[in-house]
Every structure is written in C-alpha cells, then in structure tokens.
C-alpha cells in the first residue's frame, strides 16, 4: 500500500515537469480545460448473469482534464493533457475511486476545411485508487478514430481501441490453478458514432461499440463458474461474501446522448447506454442499462 501511495505522486510530478518543459518550448501552445460533473446509474455493476445477482447503484462523477495542444504543422496537432476522475457510489462504496492520469492525442486532417476527414490517434494511462484496495490499478487505452463532418450538422466517426486494466495486487489463491487478479481485464473495441445537431443548441449522439476481451463478473460462490473462468477471488464489494471471476465475452453497447448547449462553454448532457455481453462460454448473456446526467464546462 505504501508503494502505491508514493508511486502516483512521483509519476504526477514527473508528468508535470514534462508539461512545463514542453510549454516553455512551445510559444504558441493552446491551453484548455474541460470539466464535467453529475450522476450516473448502472443497474448491473456486478455484471451478473442472474437477475437476482444484479447490483445497481448511483455514483456522483467528476471528470477533469487540462492540458495544451501544439499545432505541429498545417494539418497536425498534438494534445497532451492531465486527467482526473472521481466516482463516489451511494451504496457500494468499495467501487468509489479517484483516478489520475495523462493522455496524448495526435490529430491530423486530410485536407483543408471543416469537412476534411481527420484521424486522431490517442493513448492514455490513468491510475485508479479504489476504496476497496483490491481494485487499485492502472487503466490503459490506446486507439485511433477516423471521422468526417458532413455539412453543418452531422459528424460521423469510426474507431478502433484497445483497453486494459492492470490491478496492483494479486489476491490469495482460493482455487489452485486459478491465480491472478480477476480485475485484470483487456479488450479490443470497434465503434461507430454519429453526431447530429437537432437544433442550434441540441446535439444528439448515437454510438455502437463492439468489444471482445475479458470482463469481471461477481456472483455468489458457485463451483460451476470455475469451469469457465481463469481467475477467481473472494470479494465482499457488494456487501456479502461473493466471488469475482474473469471470463471472455463479447460486449455490444448501444448509446444515445443528448447535449444541450447552455452557453459557449457549458452544456447539459443526458446519456443512456445499453450494454449486452455474451460470454464466450455457455454462461449466457448479461446486460446493463446505464444512465447519466452531467454538466460540462470547457475552457
């Protein structure tokens, strides 16, 4: 625990030094700051297959990002930003966490004008400190998004992304042969998104993502799970002794979001996502509904 507490601040200090060094070298850097806060409700935090094992909860969420962008040439810009996240759950407080990390984004346009296609390549790493120490770890994401605006109202994009979560700790082995943290997960994501200005101040987004990789589910102790999982550990994160296990699954997520402009820099966002995961084994399908309401500010 001591090691974890010191790693993140040291890493943060190093990152800040790099930002300041780059800033001093970049005379025309463009600084920016984004913040959003609100609430999100997920009706299946446990990723449970059985209806009576589904655990839903509401979390207060805050996301902040600040950094700068340097235009490297007429069509390419590099953005570096520091990220901060916070999730505070109402009931299942073990899931509450704060995160601190960094993101790099290289964006290039293929041509001149607002309707020129663009490609954005990004990578980010965020360290998460959970209330339940077993979940502490790093999340990583890297991917590319290809997009294009069509006219004044429509923007369409497609993306490919790799995500991974690497937990710090390895829980005690409860089943010989199934070692390692069930919270270590990874996956490949393919997504498409369309954004449409319904009115001058209302932006509607539709998205679809297909992910293949591993997921963590929580269930009551069940020997059958051992047939399908490669990592198992005890957990009481949902208030009673249960087991967390990792399986392979294909997940499809359909999302719709509405963003209403409140000013040049602020917006109210309401989003809904339906998530459906099909286990690679015979475990079946689980699903989740996620609703969020956030207020965002950009400078």
């Amino acid at each position, binding site marked *: 625990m001591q090691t974890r507490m010191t790693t993140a601040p040291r890493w943060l200090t190093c990152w800040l030094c790099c930002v300041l060094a780059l800033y001093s070298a970049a005379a*025309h850097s463009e600084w920016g700051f984004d913040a959003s806060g609100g609430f999100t409700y997920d009706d299946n935090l446990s990723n449970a297959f059985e209806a009576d094992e589904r655990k839903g909860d509401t979390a207060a969420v805050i996301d902040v*990002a600040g950094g700068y962008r340097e235009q490297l040439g007429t069509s390419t810009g590099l953005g570096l930003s520091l990220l901060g996240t916070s999730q505070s759950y109402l009931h299942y407080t073990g899931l509450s966490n704060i995160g601190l990390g960094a993101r790099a984004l290289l964006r290039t346009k293929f041509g*001149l*004008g607002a309707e020129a296609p663009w490609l954005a390549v990004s990578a980010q790493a965020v360290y998460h400190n959970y209330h339940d120490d077993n979940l502490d770890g790093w999340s990583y994401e890297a991917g590319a998004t290809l997009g294009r605006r069509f006219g*004044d109202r429509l923007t369409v994009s497609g993306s490919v992304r790799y995500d991974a979560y690497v937990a710090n700790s390895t829980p005690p082995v409860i089943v010989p042969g199934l070692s390692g943290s069930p919270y270590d997960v990874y996956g490949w994501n393919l997504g498409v998104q369309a954004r449409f200005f319904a009115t001058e101040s209302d932006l509607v987004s539709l998205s679809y993502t297909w992910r293949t990789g591993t997921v963590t589910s929580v269930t009551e102790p069940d020997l059958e799970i051992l047939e399908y999982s490669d990592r198992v550990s005890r957990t009481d994160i949902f208030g009673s002794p249960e087991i967390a296990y990792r399986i392979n699954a294909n997940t499809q997520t359909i999302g719709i979001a509405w963003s209403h402009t409140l000013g040049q820099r602020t*917006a109210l966002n309401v989003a809904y996502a339906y998530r459906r995961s099909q286990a690679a084994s015979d475990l079946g399908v689980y699903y989740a509904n996620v609703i969020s309401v956030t207020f965002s*500010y950009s400078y």
Partner: protein
Amino acid sequence: MIAPAAAARVAMLVCLTLPAAALAAKLSANVRGGDGKPLPNAVVVAMPEDGRLPPLTKTVEVVDQIDKEFVPYVKPVRAGSYVQFPNKDNIRHHVYSFSPPKRFELPLYSGTPAEPVLFDKPGIVKLGCNIHDWMLGYVYVAETPYFGKSAGDGRVELDQLPPGRYQVRVWHPLMQGSETATVQRVELRDETPARVQWTLKLNPEYRPRRMPLPGEPGYR
C-alpha cells in the same frame, strides 16, 4: 454687367466648389429578423441604376482573429479592396476560403501576414480556420462603394450618396432566400433620407462554439 458666357463659367465654378455634402443624399435602412427583433450584421448595398460609380481608391481593410473568432463576423468591402488578417491570439491560425469570388489560404501563422489579400470580385467570401473549425466569418465584396452593415439596432445609415435612382438590397449570413429577392428601388433626391425596411427569415446556425461534447473527456 457680366457676359452670359462668363456667368455660366462662374456658375459652374460655384457648383464644382460646393461641399459634396450639399449634393449628397441619404438612405436609412432598418433590418429585422423574422422574430421582429433588430438584426445585426446585415449588409445593405445601394447600386446606382445609372451604373456610375466613383473611381476605386486602394484601401486595406482588416479582419482580426481574436479569442478564436473572426472580428468582425461580417466585413463588407468594395471590390478591389485589400483585406489584412492579423492574428491577435497568442496561438496560430490557418485562414482559408473556398468561396468562388476569392479562394485563398494563409497557412499556419501568428501575427500579421506580410501581404494583404485582394478581393477583386463581387460576392460573398466565407472564411474559416483549418485549426479551429468553429471559426466562421464573411467578407461581403460589393461592386459599389455605397454599403453599410447593421449594428445591434438593425439600422444602416448611408450618406454621401449622389442623388439618383438606386437599387437597394440586403444580405445576411443566415438569411433564407436570395439576396436579389430583397431588391427595392428608391429615388434619392436630397438630404431627406429615403427609408427602406426588410424583415428577413433566418436559417438556424449550427455553430455552438467550443461546446463540450458528451463522452469525450480530455482536452481536444
């Protein structure tokens, strides 16, 4: 006793030396949106029906870039004018236009470009920045020097117009329909302003500037 020929010469001299204002007429225009509110940024143009225009003098107009916006949003100029595009932000901009009356590009720059841009063909030139896609501005290139842009009260006052018959029209970046459909004919006789009025139906503007986007945390 003055000879008739000498009297005519004196009369001509007096006419030539009279202040121009004494021969000038005025036009007062009032532009409103479809909701009845005064409409700023509308360009009112008066074209003499006899086609007589004063000679062009070289002028350099300015469209600034301030806080990642074109200032002014609409800039009317006479055809043949030059426009300078100073970047007053401490970041770089990349100004361009695809509009047929003037296609040009000022690649990534800070400060003031060395050469102003010549706008020699009448028409509407839409400006953009290749770095900040929400940036939008217009240069209205008029074939006549008799034009003005409405302020917040929707009014345009044109004076120093030679008396005569004019075709007067209005243009706004968001107007529905064509500019030619707004033409009104007026006769300007003296200093009593002729009055014209338009009510323009407007298209929506899908340009929330720097609006945060849902699901995209992080600096863009």
